[in-house]
């Protein structure tokens, strides 16, 4: 249904509220930035000519302008989520489950839709065979539009009143299953911590450590914690309660290790305490040793290992039947083989390591990104489905305007 695709294409990029700087969609690996392309380019111009903006070996761009640095910090924050995906067993396993839930249902839906479209076209061709040629084409097109209008009307009737998403109305069972998969990440444990707290809290610390690496980033962040909601603060607050200001050095390795277990929020307190007893400055080395010789933590469930470990296990039956999540195989293999002399663990615990990464996926999408065709549309389409960006009321209005312009 080419017309529906055209309508949806305009709605692929999610509209973020003003206070949201960026959003990372894990399956597609795309980062949606709440800035325009022009603003991104302006930020580049501001920072690029300044030789002081490249900070030694870490090569992080640190623009002098505080407001622009927020954008760079947001990019670094979302990039860290990408590293968590390609580096940790928990995140990779979660995203892989989402993929295996999504794809069979989408493929089945698309096949069924394609079959219905063909059957409908044949019906229209038969019904219109007596019509004059000049009128026939227009009649068939209008009948197709009417069919989509009817579909939208049915979806509106069945949609939840507070949910404008086109896809949740179209595939309610798929989204119920996706919500089920996501629920454990948001559930808080006895210590009041959830996996989301760990993911977000560590990403905040990382964004400051990288963006302001040539400044006293700890003091800057200390001053800015009040800018962040509880989800971004809980993991750090927990670490601070255990080890005070050393929390800045403990949180990244502790979260990186915890995300190798089945229940990271239950593993995290143990690693925070474990890394607090090592001499200051040796947290990363101690964490590396713990990563190489993983402990059995009964309270945290099974040890999953790295993302690549999980990927390897998925090569086996019965996972092969479902189609594996392979988007990031290339970069994960290179990290496994130490192609750039860094491991996935380095990416998570050492902000400077990202500069040695030989390749990044093409993953920045600005607000005004031109959605064209080909590969980018497929990726953006997947992100859009998972972020529920296409709106049923907007699609209905656009279709109505196409049929009956003002």
């Amino acid at each position: 249904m080419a017309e529906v695709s055209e309508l949806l294409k305009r709605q692929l990029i999610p509209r973020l509220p003003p206070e949201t700087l960026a959003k990372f969609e894990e399956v597609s690996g795309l980062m949606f930035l709440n800035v325009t392309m022009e603003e991104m380019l302006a930020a580049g111009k501001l920072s690029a000519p300044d030789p002081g903006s490249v900070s030694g070996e870490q090569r992080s761009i640190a623009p002098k302008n505080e407001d622009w640095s927020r954008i760079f910090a947001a990019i670094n924050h979302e990039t860290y989520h990408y590293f968590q995906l390609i580096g940790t067993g928990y995140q990779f396993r979660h995203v892989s489950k989402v993929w295996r839930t999504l794809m069979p249902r989408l493929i089945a839906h698309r096949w069924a839709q394609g079959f219905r479209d063909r059957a409908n076209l044949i019906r229209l061709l038969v019904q219109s065979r007596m019509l004059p040629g000049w009128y026939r084409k227009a009649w068939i097109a209008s009948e197709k539009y009417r069919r989509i209008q009817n579909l939208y009307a049915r979806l509106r009737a069945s949609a939840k009143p507070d949910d404008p998403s086109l896809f949740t109305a179209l595939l309610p069972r798929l989204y119920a299953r996706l919500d089920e998969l996501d629920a454990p990440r948001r559930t808080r444990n006895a210590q009041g911590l959830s996996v989301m707290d760990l993911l977000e809290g560590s990403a905040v610390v990382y964004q400051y450590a990288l963006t302001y690496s040539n400044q006293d980033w700890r003091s800057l962040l200390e001053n800015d914690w009040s800018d962040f909601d509880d989800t971004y603060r809980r993991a750090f607050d927990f670490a601070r309660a255990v080890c005070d200001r050393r929390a800045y050095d403990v949180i990244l390795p502790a979260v990186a290790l915890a995300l190798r277990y089945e229940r990271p929020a239950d593993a995290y307190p143990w690693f925070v305490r474990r890394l607090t007893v090592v001499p200051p400055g040796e947290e990363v080395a101690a964490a590396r040793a713990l990563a190489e010789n993983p402990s059995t933590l009964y309270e945290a469930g099974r040890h999953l290992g790295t993302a690549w470990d999980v990927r390897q296990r998925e090569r086996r039956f019965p996972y092969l039947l479902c189609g594996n999540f392979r988007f990031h195989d290339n970069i994960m293999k290179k990290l496994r083989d130490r192609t750039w002399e860094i491991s996935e663990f380095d990416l998570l615990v050492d902000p400077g390591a990202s500069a040695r990464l030989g390749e990044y996926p093409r993953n920045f999408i600005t607000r005004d990104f031109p959605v064209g065709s080909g590969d980018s549309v497929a990726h953006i389409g997947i992100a859009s489905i998972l972020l529920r960006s296409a709106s049923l009321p907007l699609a209905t209005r656009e279709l109505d305007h196409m049929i009956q312009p003002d």
Partner: protein
Amino acid sequence: MLRTYKTKDAFLSAVSSALDAQGTPPDLRTPILSGLASADDDLRSENRELDSGGLNLKLGAWIIRDDDLPIFTALNTVATAVAASLVSGGLAWPLVATALTGLADLCWRAWRKGARLSSLQVTVYGFLKARGPLAVEELARLLEASGQQVPLATLRATLRGLTQIDINTGNLVALAKEDKDHVWQVLRI
């Protein structure tokens, strides 16, 4: 480009400067700022985004984006026009100030939820809030008296546009509605 502010006072001071740059007189600026402040308080206490998946980076700080500048220009224009209209109608200044506060509250609330209103839409919305409910002809007369001649057809189209405004959540919301007597009134979102 976005600017962030650690406190509400710093945010309001920046808005005040933006209004100042538009030439907004101080007696109009104060009620506008008060309207913006009250709308912003409400917006911050609401859950502004549906939990739609993905990993967000949300800031708790106060933010002004370049995209917000048109609303300050529009607010300045509409506040000046509405104040002149109300004062010439014999309304006491405290009541005029209250009307301007309500108008700014309504406009900022809609804008921040993603309603990208044109300057004319803000003017019409503002006049309806301050002087409404109004019939189209009456509204056209009031706009003309304040120095803005808007053809009736344009005005009708603008009002129709206000009944279906898309916002960030993907919903279409009505900022105005017409009753059976063809009288228009504003709706708060």
